[in-house]
Structures are given as C-alpha cells and as structure tokens.
C-alpha cells in the first residue's frame, strides 16, 4: 500500500493518458510514442550514472570531499564544484542525487549550488554541441555569462538559506 502511495502521481498521470487515448486516439498514440521514447532515453543513460554514484558513495572518503568542498573551501572549492558539474552529462534531475551525495559527504551549500548551476548550463559536451550549431561567439559568451550567473545565484541562495533550514536539508541525506 505504501509502495502504491509512492506512485500516486504516476498513476494519476497514467489515468490522464488513458483518458486521452479514449477521447482522442491519435493524440493518445503520439503521447504513448513520445513517452516510450523518453522512457527508453532515461533508461539508457541512468544505469551508468547510478553505478558511478554508488561507487563514489562507497569509495570517496568523507574527509577528502569535506577538505576540498567544505563550507570554508573558498576559491578551490568553487572551481572543484564547477568542474564536477560541467564534466557531467544528462539532464538536470540527474544532478540532484549527486548533490545529495555531496551533502552527505559534507560539501558546503554554496558549492552544492554552484555544482547544480554548472550541471544545468555549463556542461562541456553541451557546450561543444552548442558551438557546432550556434557558433563559438554565441556559446563562449553564453558560457562565461552563465558562469558568473551561477556563482552569483549560488551566493544569494547560500546567503538567504538560514542555518536551521540548511541543517534540515542536510538531515535528509544523512
């Protein structure tokens, strides 16, 4: 029953989709088609992400990350968080479980937010792809602006989140 409850939104979405199939079969077929496509896409890139995650979780010693990306890590922590995020691949929600591991290992909230921002918009594979399609002046300008923006946004968030709120967030990933 609790298992079923975890999936209540999934079941609701499936119910809506089934309703669409009955009401408009051609639209329904298109939805089924696209859903199957994105399902296969996720399925294809998620296993290695989670295996790498599991390995990192087991093998990276807590102290090591704390000393490199902890709350007092300054500039080197910022650079490390940016690199960790931009050498990644996959959509943004792939970054959340990694951020959870970072918090579990004691990384500072500012660095976690820099990591999320870097993953969202500074990814190197995407940068190369963007350069190919939109030109290097577009992609380089956007990358540099975004880097400034990511650091600024991370600074604002870590300033505005109180210590209590931060403790509550970190407690989720103990």
């Amino acid at each position, binding site marked *: 029953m609790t298992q079923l409850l975890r*999936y209540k*939104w999934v079941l609701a*979405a499936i119910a*809506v989709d089934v309703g*669409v199939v009955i009401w408009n079969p051609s*639209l329904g077929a*298109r939805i089924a*088609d696209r*859903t199957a*496509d*994105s*399902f296969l*896409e996720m399925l294809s*890139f*998620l296993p*290695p*992400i*989670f*295996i*790498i*995650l*599991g*390995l990192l*979780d*087991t*093998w990276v010693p807590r102290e090591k990350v704390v000393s490199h990306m902890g709350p007092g890590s300054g500039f080197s922590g910022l650079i490390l968080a940016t690199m960790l995020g931009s050498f990644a*691949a*996959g*959509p*943004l*929600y792939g970054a*959340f*479980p990694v*951020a*959870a591991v970072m918090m579990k290992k004691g990384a500072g909230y500012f660095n976690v937010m820099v990591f*999320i*921002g870097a993953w*969202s*918009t500074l990814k190197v*594979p*995407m940068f190369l*792809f*963007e350069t*190919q399609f*939109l030109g290097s*002046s*577009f992609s380089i*300008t*956007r990358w540099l*602006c*975004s880097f400034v*923006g990511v650091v*600024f*946004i991370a600074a604002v*968030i870590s300033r505005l*989140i109180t210590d209590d*709120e931060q403790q509550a*967030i970190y407690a*989720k*990933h103990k």
Partner: protein
Amino acid sequence: MDIVLFYTLAAAGLTWSYYKDRQKTKQSLTKAWKAFNNILPALAFVILLIGATLAVVSPEKVSQLLGSSSGAGGMVIAATIGSITLIPGFIAFPLAKAVLDMGAGILQVAVFISTLMMVGVVTAPMEAQFFNRKTVLLRNGLSLLFSFVVAVVLNQVVGR
C-alpha cells in the same frame, strides 16, 4: 557520445572496484539501486509529463511562437516554453539554429536556451525533495531573471 562515455566510466569504475574490494563493489551496487529506487516515482512522473508535452507541443509551433517579430512578448513566451519543457540539448540546439535561420531574434532564442537549461518547472517537485522549497524557488526564479540578462548580453555580442 555522452552515453558511451558514461558506460565506459561506469564499467572502468566497476572493474577497478571489483579488483580492489569485492565487498565494497557489492555495497556500491546496492547503494546505486537504493538511490535509483528512491527517485523512481518522481522520475516516472517526469517521463510521463515529458511524453505528453512533446506530443502536444510540436517544433513547428515553437518556431511560430519565437518568430523575430514577437519582441518582448516573444521573449516571455520563449522563457515560458524554456522553463516548462524538458527538451534535450541535442534537439534544442538544432531547433534553435533552425529558428534563427528563419529570422528569429537572438533575444528570444537566447532566453529559450538559457531557461531550458537552468529553469525546471516540471522537475521542481523532485528538486524540492532533495533541497527545500525556498532553495528551489530562489534558484529557478533567479535563473529565470538571469536568462533575460544573458539574452541582452548575447544580443549585444552576436546580434546583427
């Protein structure tokens, strides 16, 4: 490309780990499965939403809405589409180029690309599970505003 790299990394990591310590390798895989199982409900919901969004919103409609004559209204529409949809980069960049070639403004395309990457309305509930509501509102809200700044700068640098 990304996928090949990821599988190579995972395989190399597993081989190294297995060689070093079998017990830790088993532990790693258990942790991997637990983490996956944790986000599976949210993930499945996202997949269903993506499927429906891609079926309802066609690339032609996107091109039409982002036309060069759309001005500030077009930027707002671009930001809305970019924030809500989860179009993978390998579809979004070719689409952006097509839209640009059809005479769309840099402003609209830049706002679209930037919000697409940084703002995630659909994934916000999942994000809130990992952080908290305040963080999610701040990150997505500031990223949305920031996307307009990026667009103005890009327009200055590459706009004709």
